[in-house]
């Protein structure tokens, strides 16, 4: 135990994380309900983007179809609400959403991982649009363009009859979401640092040699594709409780593009990058939408400037800065060369 503690203190990162979590525990008291809910949106997108980045940053596969998994999670919740109301409790909803995301990402993954780069991106896009089209057209089941309503579920035996959503969201749901976020963070970080994670990065860096050293490229791509889809689906499910309403456009490729956007904004070369990106994106989009009718212009130009000037994203830019300040070598073992 002593050795462990010593090791922990030697690594400043862990202390920073603990500090952040500590602060987050008090957030409901610091932020207004409006900003807290916005923050919660950011957390759900953060989980989705972290999941997405397992595929992009660590395995080198760009998917423009992750909206389909987000939708799987969100619609999973909404469908249970509509068709199995007696099962409408968080303990069932989360596993249910994960299961649906698992199924859809397994199917997509099986079809997609035989291809790379452009074909992979197009196939993922096409499949997610297939989901979009199906959700849209089968409106008797899915509510079509009107979507489905997501009421507050019961959680661990507690029901929330008569509780209004903002109250729910700033109370027990916030802590629940925070727990799931921290758990997801730890699990994904574990995956990335494990031998499996190293193997994925080897696949990203040199597919041919990776195969030669015995790494089963297609199989591992499939595994991480599914894991990635499930976390994005988890994000979607958690998002549905905040939003209260699910519509087909979360499966549209433009929404998938927003997930890519967030990840790039924060930086895909660093593990925490997507979290930062998701937060900034959520607040940026709202600010843009609130201040001008031409908010898409702002989002578009921001993305373009980002891609042209800050290829490693906000987190990457920040990291380069701290590295220069610390006068360290500009490389840490986590960075991913964008000019490959």
């Amino acid at each position, binding site marked *: 135990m002593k050795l462990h503690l010593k090791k922990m203190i030697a690594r400043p990162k862990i202390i920073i994380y603990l500090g952040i979590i500590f602060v987050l525990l008090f957030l409901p008291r610091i932020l207004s309900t409006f900003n807290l809910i916005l923050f919660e949106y950011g957390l759900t997108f953060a989980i989705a983007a972290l999941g997405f980045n397992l595929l*992009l940053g660590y395995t080198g596969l*760009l998917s*423009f179809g992750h909206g389909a998994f987000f939708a799987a999670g969100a619609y999973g919740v909404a469908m249970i609400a509509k068709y199995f109301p007696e099962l409408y409790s968080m303990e069932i909803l989360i596993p249910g959403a994960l299961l649906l995301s698992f199924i859809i990402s397994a199917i997509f993954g099986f*079809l997609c991982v*035989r*291809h790379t*780069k*452009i*074909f992979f*991106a*197009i*196939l993922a*896009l*096409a*499949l997610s*649009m*297939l989901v979009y*089209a*199906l959700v*849209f*057209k*089968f409106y008797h089941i899915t509510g079509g363009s009107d979507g489905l309503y997501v009421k507050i579920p019961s959680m661990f035996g507690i029901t929330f009859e008569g509780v209004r959503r903002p109250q729910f969201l700033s109370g027990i749901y916030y802590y629940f979401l925070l727990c799931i976020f921290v758990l997801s963070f730890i699990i994904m970080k574990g995956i990335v640092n494990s031998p499996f994670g190293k193997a994925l990065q080897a696949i990203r860096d040199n597919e041919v040699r990776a195969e030669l050293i015995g790494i089963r490229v297609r199989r591992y791509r499939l595994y991480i594709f599914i894991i990635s889809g499930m976390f994005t689906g988890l994000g979607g499910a958690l998002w549905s409780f905040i939003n209260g309403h699910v519509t087909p456009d979360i499966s549209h*490729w*433009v929404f998938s*593009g927003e997930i*890519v*956007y967030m990840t*790039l904004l924060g930086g895909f070369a660093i593990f925490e990058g997507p979290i930062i990106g998701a937060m900034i994106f959520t607040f940026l989009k709202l600010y843009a939408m609130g201040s001008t*009718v*031409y*908010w*898409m*212009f702002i*989002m*578009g*130009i*921001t*993305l*373009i400037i980002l*891609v*042209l000037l800050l*290829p490693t994203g906000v987190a990457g830019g920040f990291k380069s800065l701290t590295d220069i300040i610390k006068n360290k070598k500009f490389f840490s073992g986590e960075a991913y060369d*964008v*000019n*490959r």
Partner: protein
Amino acid sequence: MWPIYILNGLYFAAFMFLISLGLNIILGVMGILNLAHGSLYAIGAFTAAWAIVALGKGASITFIYLSLISGAVLAAFFGLFMEYFLIRPLYKRALEYQLLVTFGALLLLEDVMKMIWGGEAYYASRPFDILGKIHILGNPYPAYFLFVMIAALFIGILLWVFMAKTKVGTMLRAISLDREMATALGLDIHKLGTFAFVLGAALAGLAGALVVPTTPALLGFGMEPLILAFIVVVVGGLGSLKGALVGSLIVGQTRSIGIVIFPEIELALLFLIAAVILVAKPEGLFGR
């Protein structure tokens, strides 16, 4: 009624052909999947509509039809800007960045169109009305649709000749076949890339211009053609003119017949076909 459905299918196919041809040229020569292609199509539509309306009622018939070309021209200009400011700086970087920057362009252009043309629908039906109807097998059929089909065919042939017989065309084909070899042979990749992008943009704009006499130009109406164009490229194959033709025909007919028989899943059916082809023959029917 069947001949009418088939004719409609050919009419859809004509558009898809022009749009996907542009997409294919850009994809083949530059390796970029231009996510903003639908936006260029929409720009072409808005421009042509505006031009036709601006010419007013008294303008001669020739001018009315010539004004359709304005759509191609403005789209080409936007394509030029895009290539120079967005694509060219990222030439050396990974493909994903180019994809992302065209996504940014899509968002941007959507609002640029809003800024220039506002949020209203632009109607410009004169070119359609002038041509009236022709009787085919006893059924009246809009002659404009036939005009579009003939125009698309004409352009297709023109492009085929250009690619096969001219120096520039051959150079473009060389680059799309083997980029490294082309550079080694001393071809000016940058200039030719710009040319390809502008050409692709012009084709998209032209398609938009041709559609506007039949349906009003609206914000966001470049999205569906974009997706359909992806499907055409996927089905027909990358880098193949023949593929674009066949792909367009398949998509066009599926759309036309699908709307009648399976109205609910007609869109899904198209994606299904695309997915099947991507799985079975990923290079597309005629791709490399």
